[in-house]
């Protein structure tokens, strides 16, 4: 009986925790620190230990404790330090090229490769290829015989 009550209580606590987590998704401090920079050190915030980094970490921790989402925390950091505080470029404006250029370059290379292969295969199959050589011409054969006659093989 007591065991059943304990199991019920545990299930109730777990359900409550899950419900509260779903209602207010919180930013993760460690996750944010791995996605933003320490502007003074030029490294990820999670790796930085400078006085500026400590202040920045405290700022992030405070916003996380206030229940801000990851996007809100990042926006606040950008407002303080500018776009350079983000470790990954934004997906808009000129920064979008960081994502688009590799994709476009890959697509162009793939298309060029496909064209090249198709052309190569067409050339290899040979409907427009000339007939295979059927031995030397009479003049070549005559000259060959003359050359061979000069050598006693």
């Amino acid at each position: 009986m007591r065991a059943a009550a304990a199991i019920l209580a545990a299930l109730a606590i777990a359900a409550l925790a899950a419900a509260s987590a779903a209602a207010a998704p919180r930013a993760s401090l460690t996750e944010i620190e791995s996605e933003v920079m320490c502007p003074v050190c030029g490294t990820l915030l999670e790796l930085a230990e400078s006085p500026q980094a400590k202040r920045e970490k405290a700022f992030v921790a405070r916003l996380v404790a206030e229940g801000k989402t990851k996007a809100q925390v990042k926006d606040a950091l950008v407002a303080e330090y500018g776009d350079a505080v983000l470790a990954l470029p934004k997906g808009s404006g000129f920064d979008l090229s960081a994502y688009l250029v590799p994709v476009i370059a890959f697509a162009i290379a793939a298309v060029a490769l496909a064209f090249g292969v198709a052309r190569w295969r067409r050339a290899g199959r040979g409907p427009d290829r000339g007939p295979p050589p059927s031995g030397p011409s009479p003049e070549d054969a005559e000259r060959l015989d003359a050359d061979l006659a000069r050598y006693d093989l």
Partner: protein
Amino acid sequence: MLAVLAVVGLLVYGLASKGSSGVALGEVAPASSLPRLEGSGDGSLADYRGRWVLVNFWASWCIPCKQEAPLLERFQHRYGGRAFTVLGVDSRDLSGDGRAFVRRYRLTYPQLRDGDGAAAHEFGTTGVPENFLVDPAGRVRLLVRGPVTGEYLRDQVAPLLPGERS
């Protein structure tokens, strides 16, 4: 071909935007517009053209800046006016921390905010604090990479100024 051109263009842009910068003695100091640390609106070194300006790059997390700030405030109190001002630039700092610093040290000279460090980059600073004495024509006359001392202000900066508070 287009992709190659795009990649080369990006590389050139990256190199150009990360190129060396900075200001040397005798050169015209950068005068980009920056938001004011306290209150609203923007300010710029250009607003003080015609005056001597000691541009002081600082941050609230910088320990030497804490020792330097009271000296600068005393110097401002003595020489600040129509002919001279200290101009603080809070660089790569949280604005709330910067404002708390100004209140704590009771700084009365104007303060600009350089959150992303762009102005510091234009001046070619290597850290904080750094100080640039700019003459009324906007040219850098003195440059101190590190905190200024009371002796430096008295012996190097003060003799260049008109002298009396106007």
